[in-house]
Structure formats: C-alpha cells, structure tokens
C-alpha cells in the first residue's frame, strides 16, 4: 500500500503534465514537423494529386523563390511591420504613455483635459480589445468609397483597393497601439516619481527629462515591446484579410498568400512551403527575443 502511494507520488507530476504535453504535441509539434513533409510533396486538395501524391523534395521551395507574388508578399510584410509596428505603434504608444503620465494643473481646464485624456485612452483600449474581424469590417467601411477616410482625403474611390498596403498599415496602427501604450504606462509606473522631481528641481527641461531620465529607464521595456510587436505584426492576418476581402490579390502579405494558396487554390503543399520559410524568419525573431530576455535578466540581477 505504502509503496503504491510512493510510486504514485513520484509519477503523479508526470501524469498531471500528460494532458498538456499530449495536446501540445498533437496540435503544435506534429503539425510543425508534418508541415515540413507536406511542403516536399505535390499534394493538392483536388485533382489527381489529391489521392496519390509524390515526394518532390525542394521543388515547392524553388517555385517560391521564383514566384514574384510570394516575393512581393514577403517584401510587403516587411514594409507593413516596419511602418505599422516600429514607426507607428512604438512611437504612438510611447507618446500616449507620456500623455497619460503628465500631471495636469488643478484647475477646471486641467480637469477638462483629464476627462479628454481618459476618453482617449479608453478609445485606444477599445480599438485593441474588440474582435479582429470587427476591426477589419469597420476599417473596410471607413476606407470604402464614400467612407470617412475617402471624404477626408477627397478621394472618389475605394482607398483600400487603390492603396492596400498603406491602408492596412494605418488600420494596424489603430488596432495595435494599445499594447505598447499599456506596456509603457506599466513600465513608467515602476519608475519612482522622485526621480522626475529631482531632475525638475535641477532645472531639466521636459525634453531633457525625457531624453536623459525617462528614456534610459524605459529602454528595457521599449526593447521588449519592440521585439514582441515586431513578431506579432509580422504574423498579422485577420484584419487585413477582412478589410481587403478575398477579391484582392494574394501578394498583399505573406499570411494572406498562405491562406489563398491553401484554401482558395487548394494547394496546401505550396502553402506549407511558404509557411515554413516564414516560420524560419519568425523563429529567428523569437530566438533573438529569448536571447535578449536572458541577457536582460542577467543584467538585472547583476545590478542588485
């Protein structure tokens, strides 16, 4: 009896981990490995190679390298990430966090500004938490012929159809900025207020205070934010997909290319090859993130 409970005690931990390990293995690990195999076949969902397919080794990859649509999608994804995540979300998120932190004069005007500020932060937050499909629909309407954006730009056409990349970049800044904002607000809260006050008493201008006090203390948070949203933005699919609708070309982003190849063109083997190439890129970013976090941790503990 006691040897039975001993054995149970010893193996129970492994038993409790089993469901998670099984699920992760079945639906994350195996699909990732299987994707490699799939990408080396000529399997299609319809037609003669749906039943009997052959191993064609790297042919799908060679096809991708010479496929202008794929290369354009890849280039667009890089532009999308640079402008939306790095230039848009990080900068706007930082400005909003600074605005959230600013102390307002204790006057009726100050109180009114405070209400405006709360409203603004709530709007930024709501844009981030509503379902992505809704965000895509709202932006499709906004950039539709006769929509608000067309009106403001004086454009008598569908903006999203004429300038798809620019439209989805702006829409994604709208969608994603809240994450950076919340992260920066949280990081700033961790900086003691007396540090700002000391700098102010020493006569530092607001810009000097930002440049020499806030920015250096915020640097780790900015880097974490920068890497995370770079990965997420590079992987964005739903909002651009809904906004541009299926009618538009598959060259818009690499994620849309994968969807179109797999679902519309019923060619999952080429889609798998494209997904693998992109996963390698994302993996490199994740490894950079992990290496950076480890270094940061070491630096942090060394400083104590």
């Amino acid at each position: 009896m006691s040897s039975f409970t001993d054995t149970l005690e010893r193996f129970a931990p492994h038993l409790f981990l089993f469901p998670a390990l099984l699920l992760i293995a079945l639906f994350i690990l195996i699909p990732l490995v299987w994707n490699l195999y799939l990408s080396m076949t000529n399997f299609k969902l319809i037609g003669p190679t749906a039943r009997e397919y052959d191993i064609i080794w790297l042919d799908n990859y060679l096809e991708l390298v010479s496929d202008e649509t794929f290369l354009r999608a890849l280039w667009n994804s890089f532009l999308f990430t640079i402008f939306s995540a790095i230039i848009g979300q990080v900068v706007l998120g930082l400005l909003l966090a600074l605005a959230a932190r600013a102390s307002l004069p204790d006057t009726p005007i100050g109180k009114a500004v405070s209400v405006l500020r709360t409203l603004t932060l709530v709007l930024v937050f709501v844009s981030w938490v509503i379902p992505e499909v809704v965000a895509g629909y709202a932006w499709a309407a906004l950039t539709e012929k006769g929509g608000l954006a067309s009106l403001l730009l004086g454009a008598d056409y569908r903006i999203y159809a004429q300038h798809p990349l620019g439209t989805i970049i702006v829409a994604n800044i709208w969608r994603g900025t809240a994450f950076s904002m919340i992260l920066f607000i949280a990081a700033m809260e961790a900086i003691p207020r007396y540090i700002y006050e000391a700098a102010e008493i020493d006569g530092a201008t607001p810009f000097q205070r930002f440049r020499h006090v806030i920015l250096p203390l915020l640097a780790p948070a900015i880097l974490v934010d920068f890497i995370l949203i770079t990965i997420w933005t590079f992987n964005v699919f739903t909002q651009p997909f809904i906004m541009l609708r299926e009618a538009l070309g598959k060259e818009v982003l690499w994620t849309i290319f994968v969807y179109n190849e797999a679902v519309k063109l019923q060619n999952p083997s080429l889609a798998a090859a494209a997904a693998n190439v992109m996963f390698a890129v994302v993996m490199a970013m994740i490894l950079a993130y992990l290496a950076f976090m480890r270094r940061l941790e070491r630096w942090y503990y060394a400083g104590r």
Partner: protein
Amino acid sequence: MQAGSLANLQVIALVAFLLIVALFFGAPLLWLVLSSFDPNASPEFKVPSSPTLSHYLGLNRPIGNATPLRWIVNSIILSAATATLTTLVAVLSAYTLTRHPLRWQKGFITLLVVFRLTPSIVLAVPVMVLLRAVGMLNSYTSLVIVMTALILPFAIMILESYFRAIPVDYEEAAVIDGLSRPEAFLRITLPLAAPGIATVWLLAFVIMWSEFVIPVFILGDPAKYPASVGLWFFFGEHGRVDYGRLSAFSILYSIPAVIVFLVIRKHLERGLAALASR
C-alpha cells in the same frame, strides 16, 4: 500652478495631441455605433435622422442556412468549452511545474514561449490537412481541442506565475495537520489561486471568442460558424452589403470582449509590468 504640472503651452499641445488621437481611434468605433441605428446605413459617416432598432431586431433573420444570433450562441458554446478545458489542463500543468520542479523544466518553459509566439496561420494548414485525413473536419470537438492546444502555452505561463507566488509552506502545514495532498491542493492552494484561475478562464474565453483563423480552416458549414467567421461570411456575401445589420451584429459581438478585458485589466497590467521590468 501646482509643482510638476504642465505649463499652459504644454497643455495646449497635449490637448491638440489628445484630440487628434481621440478622433483617429474614435471614428471607426463611432461609425459602427451610428450605422447600427441608421435605417439607411452606408459607409458614409452620418448621424441617423430617424434612429431605429430594426438592425438589432433583425439579427435572427437568416443569412444562408444560419442566423447571426445563432453565430453568437455558437461562439458562447465554443468559447466556454475551450476556456474550461484550457483552464483544467493548465491548472494541472502549472501546479505540477511549481510544486515538483522537473529536470527539463527550463527547456519546457522556453518551448512554451516559442509556441506562444508561433503564428496560427503556420499551424492552420497542416492541422486542416491532418484533420481532413482522419475525417474530423467541420467538428466542434476538433476546434475546441485544437484551440485549447494553441492557448495552453500562454495559460500555463500565466498560471505558473500565480502558483509560484503561493508559498508551498501553506500546503505543507495543512499536510502536517492531517490533510492529504489532493485535499491540501483543493482546500488551500486552489482558493488562493482563484483570481489567477478566473483570469486564465476569461482570457481563454476571449481568445476563442475573437479567433478567426483556426475556425475558418476547420469549419465548413455556415450553421456551425462562430461569430468571427459568421461576420466574414456575412460581409463577403455578393451584392449589396447590409451595413446596418453588420454593424449591429459587430457591436453585439464586441460587447462581451470589451467587458472581459475591463474585468481582467488589472491582471493584464500586472502581467505587462512584470514583462517590462523583468
């Protein structure tokens, strides 16, 4: 003027900045609200002259072989099932990882981070082909299990930090006082971890609630669609787009997500603060 507060010119700059940002972020949201009450809704930005509730009341009118209300009900079922399964599995794993450290623990956590950041479109293609091969496409069971697997890495990481914060001494003391280990877990640790468990359940719920990629690859029958895929189906229909009803549906579909995020906001900020200052 109070010490440390902004000067007049800075206040003016702040107001200008806030106004521009509020307009940019508010415009699409305001259009959604206005058009959902507008009998002649269109992409045009206008205040309805005679507001109506007809778009909301018309949400049980069918589109194809389904109704928008059905999609919301489907989403509730799928999200609740996914959240519950995810939480159960994640509690077991996270508890084990904090109470019985394993040799390969560090590697496992690193793997969780990698999986957490893996794009779902990369997994969607092989998962679809594999489920098709075993004849399990178009099934809620498949969808719930796949989504649970995808949310698990995130859920385990969050719960692990909650369990880590509860001293193991509490349980040990309870065991010395005569409770068995499972009892000590159920009566001491679990109640203390309740806020974390609730947060994970709500997060998993809202992730499934908003998810589009995986269901669009797995489900083929519009009557089975969750709200996300239903909205896409509704919007992508040929011919005239029914903006009024689409906006009303979008708002109904967004409200639960907004509420959940408001409830877990504090936990979210805590998690992000930990991330930023780690």
